[in-house]
């Protein structure tokens, strides 16, 4: 049976991610902070919630920045929410934080007091929003274009390479809802909290050979 490692660096609740992966029959799901277990896993999931400075501090302390660079190259790898943001070059949250740099681009604040169509935009961007599938990708299999996924974030990814944006979201401005490059895929929304479409994406991830 294949193994899926969910990287645990002590930030937040990994219960939902691991339960959702088990629910779709992704294989043996290991929530772990053991570098060896992560290196040996067939697939790796890199979640994250909370403040990026705290996340990056823990990631570096555990040496996971280097580990993520390694294991995101040669097997299916999925970053979720702050996990996606940590894969960028840098974030402007917490006064500016250098991140892992697996995708070119940066993480920006939505900004307070934005108004769109006469409505004040609340931050965090919280709830179900549409994702435009800008490019075909195995992880979009069986998911309709413009399907709604559950988001909760105050900062968004501005991709440095537009070709890597495979899903586009919009909230006041366009942002990268999903990025892909080789065996790496990253989503701003929470597939584990996005009902049928989210579970489908996780199932697609579990079946993906990592090629794109």
């Amino acid at each position, binding site marked *: 049976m294949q193994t899926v490692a969910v990287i645990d660096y002590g930030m*937040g*609740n990994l*219960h*939902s991610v691991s*339960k*959702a992966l088990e*629910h779709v029959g992704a294989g043996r799901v290991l929530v772990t902070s053991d570098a060896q277990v992560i290196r040996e896993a067939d697939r790796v999931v890199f979640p994250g*919630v*909370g*403040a990026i400075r705290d996340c990056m501090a823990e990631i570096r302390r555990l040496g996971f920045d280097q580990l993520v660079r390694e294991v995101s190259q040669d097997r299916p790898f999925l970053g979720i929410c702050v996990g996606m943001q940590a894969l960028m070059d840098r974030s402007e949250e917490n006064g500016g934080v250098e991140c892992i740099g697996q995708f070119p681009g940066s993480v920006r604040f939505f900004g*307070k*007091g934005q108004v769109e*169509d006469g409505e*004040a935009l*609340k*931050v*965090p*961007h*919280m*709830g*179900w*929003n*549409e994702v*435009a599938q800008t490019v075909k990708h195995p992880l979009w299999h069986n998911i309709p274009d*413009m399907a*709604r996924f*559950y988001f*909760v*974030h*105050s900062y968004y990814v501005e991709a440095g390479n537009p070709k890597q944006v495979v899903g586009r*979201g*919009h*909230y006041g401005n366009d942002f990268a809802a999903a990025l892909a490059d080789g065996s790496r895929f990253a989503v701003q929304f*929470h597939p*584990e*909290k*996005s*009902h049928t479409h*989210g*579970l489908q994406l996780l199932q697609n991830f579990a079946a993906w050979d990592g090629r794109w």
Partner: protein
Amino acid sequence: MALAKRIIPCLDVDNGRVVKGVKFENIRDAGDPVEIARRYDEQGADEITFLDITASVDGRDTTLHTVERMASQVFIPLTVGGGVRTVMDIRNLLNAGADKVSINTAAVFNPEFVGEAAQRFGSQCIVVAIDAKRVSAPGETPRWEIFTHGGRKPTGLDAVLWAKKMEDLGAGEILLTSMDQDGMKSGFDLGVTRAISESVGIPVIASGGVGNLDHLADGIIEGKAAAVLAASIFHFGEYTVPEAKAYMASRGIVVR
């Protein structure tokens, strides 16, 4: 592309059982919160709120166990509130699978707790629950106060200022319970819902007194809420979540 307004069924849970029976079409009353949450999930509810009203200390373990079971089977966001007083309470609930934790009375008596919680766990998972009632007489400039103990005890705190303070301390969302002056089932107090929604930059969930689908739509359109929470209209099978969504959509509200 627009963010959908959310519909959130709320379950009152005592010692691992839903307090009032819940009735779905063709399904008899069920008291298991996990079973009920699954039904709402299937109906297309956008989130579930689990309000723990267990009085006993021993009951806390039952709550954690129930949350854990629910989070293993329901793949939409889950907020848990009721009796949250310490950082350890929050940690335990998040570890059991809650996505957000709602702080109510503890915020009133110790506002710094909200700040501490947001620092530790991130604003995205800290909801502050506010019970507000109108205290101004008819004809006066409207003023609303925070109440505790199920709406019985006034605190002297202005509800709008309080909501802003909670935002400043790091709350990620406000769960505002209000009732129109007439009392039960006459809808939200749209005045306070709108006053708070327009003065904070974080999402506001409107709750309290929902008796029909117009109340839900009014909470969004007039009250400017980002989400509406209701219990009894869904529990007793008066309306289903899809009916509520279809009605809201007919009034021009974006729903999932």
